[in-house]
């Protein structure tokens, strides 16, 4: 694979792998198996969370600057050069703010709900492969598990909306639930197209099946499935133009109206982490995953995921918000039939290619 063709020394191409082997060797000398494996997994998870948190801060800044550019404004430009430290300042502000819990709120649910949203959105990253053999967990039902874990988000948001004891929060929660279950169907169905091509649901297997041609270029089904996946993905992460659950002009801030300080930051972190995860999933399923020339694999995956995120930002700066009935109409009457037809066509193509149709 492209990892083997990396022209740089191994330190550049796979520093994580080298560090992993080094730490493992060190630990294995001191403590018995399986403790080193457990310790390494914990370390990997901690590192991943740190990377995601930093990336989210960069995403917030990039999004604000990009949208400002599209709208001919300046955007954040005071803290640090070109405002790059604005996100740091925002995070500090959020952490220092008072953490309010409404008097009428259901306290336990109110406190747990942000965690139910955040934890799945971070756990998804443990399944995404960053290079050959470079995933915290490579399971053979990978894509199904990613989508299944993602469905916890809906539950957390619904619980947050209900626990706030606020009409706007409840409405926002209901909107999210209706939107997410409507768009989950086309999302899953269009994600099955690469699974059919690869003949496996393992994310590594799907990436390796794209060694010659990326799935997005497999005519005629690839581009259509990618487009449906992207649109359904935008709806899944509640981004504009599908951001009805938090439409300021209609229902204040939706499900997180009553949230402030740290807990609001958790929702925020989950939302941007999910946006990037949709980008990473799109890269894994349709854009060849970590494969690419010259650069090390993890750089390629990060680059592709970020590129998809930039497309999401571009769409946000371009399109107006949909009306609710338009949203439902598009999900059930346009996206779902298209994805089903694409899946059927893929099945026919695959069996024709394999010559096992009879």
């Amino acid at each position, binding site marked *: 694979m492209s990892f083997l063709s990396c022209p740089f020394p191994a330190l550049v191409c796979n520093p994580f792998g080298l560090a992993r082997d080094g730490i493992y060797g060190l630990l294995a000398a001191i403590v018995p198996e399986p403790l080193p494996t457990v310790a390494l997994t914990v370390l990997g998870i901690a590192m991943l969370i740190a990377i995601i948190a930093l990336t989210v801060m960069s995403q917030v800044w990039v999004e604000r600057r990009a949208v400002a550019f599209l709208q001919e404004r300046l955007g954040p430009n005071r803290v640090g050069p070109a405002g790059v430290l604005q996100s740091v300042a925002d995070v500090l502000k959020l952490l220092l703010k008072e953490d309010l819990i409404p008097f009428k709120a259901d306290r336990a649910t109110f406190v747990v709900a942000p965690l139910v949203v955040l934890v799945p959105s971070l756990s998804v990253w443990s399944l995404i492969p960053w290079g050959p053999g470079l995933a915290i967990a490579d*399971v*053979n039902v990978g894509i199904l*598990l990613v989508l299944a874990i993602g469905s916890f988000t809906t539950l957390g948001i619904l619980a947050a909306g209900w626990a706030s004891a606020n009409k706007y929060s409840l409405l926002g929660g209901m909107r999210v639930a209706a939107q997410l279950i409507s768009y989950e169907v086309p999302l899953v169905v269009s994600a099955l197209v690469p699974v059919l091509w690869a003949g496996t649901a393992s994310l590594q297997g799907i990436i390796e099946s794209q060694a010659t041609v990326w799935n997005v270029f497999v005519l005629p089904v690839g581009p259509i499935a990618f487009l449906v996946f992207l649109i359904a993905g935008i709806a899944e992460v509640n981004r504009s133009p599908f951001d009805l659950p938090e439409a300021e002009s209609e229902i204040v801030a939706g499900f997180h109206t009553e949230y402030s300080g740290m807990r609001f930051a958790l929702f925020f972190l989950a939302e941007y982490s999910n946006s990037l995860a949709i980008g990473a999933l799109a890269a894994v399923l349709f854009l060849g995953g970590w494969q690419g020339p010259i650069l090390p694999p993890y750089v390629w995956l990060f680059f592709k995921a970020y590129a998809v995120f930039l497309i999401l930002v571009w769409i946000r700066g371009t399109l107006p918000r949909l009306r609710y009935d338009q949203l439902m109409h598009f999900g059930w009457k346009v996206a779902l039939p298209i994805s089903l037809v694409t899946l059927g066509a893929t099945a026919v193509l695959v069996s024709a290619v394999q010559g096992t149709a009879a």
Partner: protein
Amino acid sequence: MVIPMELLVAGGFYTFAAAAIAGAISLIIARNVFHSALFLTLTLASAGGVFVILGADFLAAVQLLIYVGAVMILILFGLMLTPQDVELPNLSTPGQAISGAIVAAAIFVVSAATLLSAQWSGTAAEPSDVATTEQIGVSLFTTFVLPFEIASVLFLVAMIGAIVIARER
């Protein structure tokens, strides 16, 4: 000293099993219906964890995808569409509640005694560790194609039925 894999598996099983049963019991005890629904989610997700330990990884993913992603959301919607009267007692009359608990306990004791005293021949020492996705798919479309088609018809009937029943006249 090397910690055996069996012990880790057992630890995982007991954790998930305890979470599943605790969730189920809390579901019944909880006074608030919304809390009951959240406890049900705990039970369902933990059952998914048990599936993984018993070697059914595909089924675990399906369990999460369908139960947490669809059934739970449906139930929560049902809750919100039927505002609950918190003043009403949640349990039935004490007599019925107690007799219900006794019946359930009796059924548990009988089934536990039966399955513990039975001789299970032809069983493995540990769960089989094979990739199940493809095998399940193949058997769904060969051995079990008739149940599969009947299930599809059932879905259609349920869908139309639900729409007709819940439609506002």
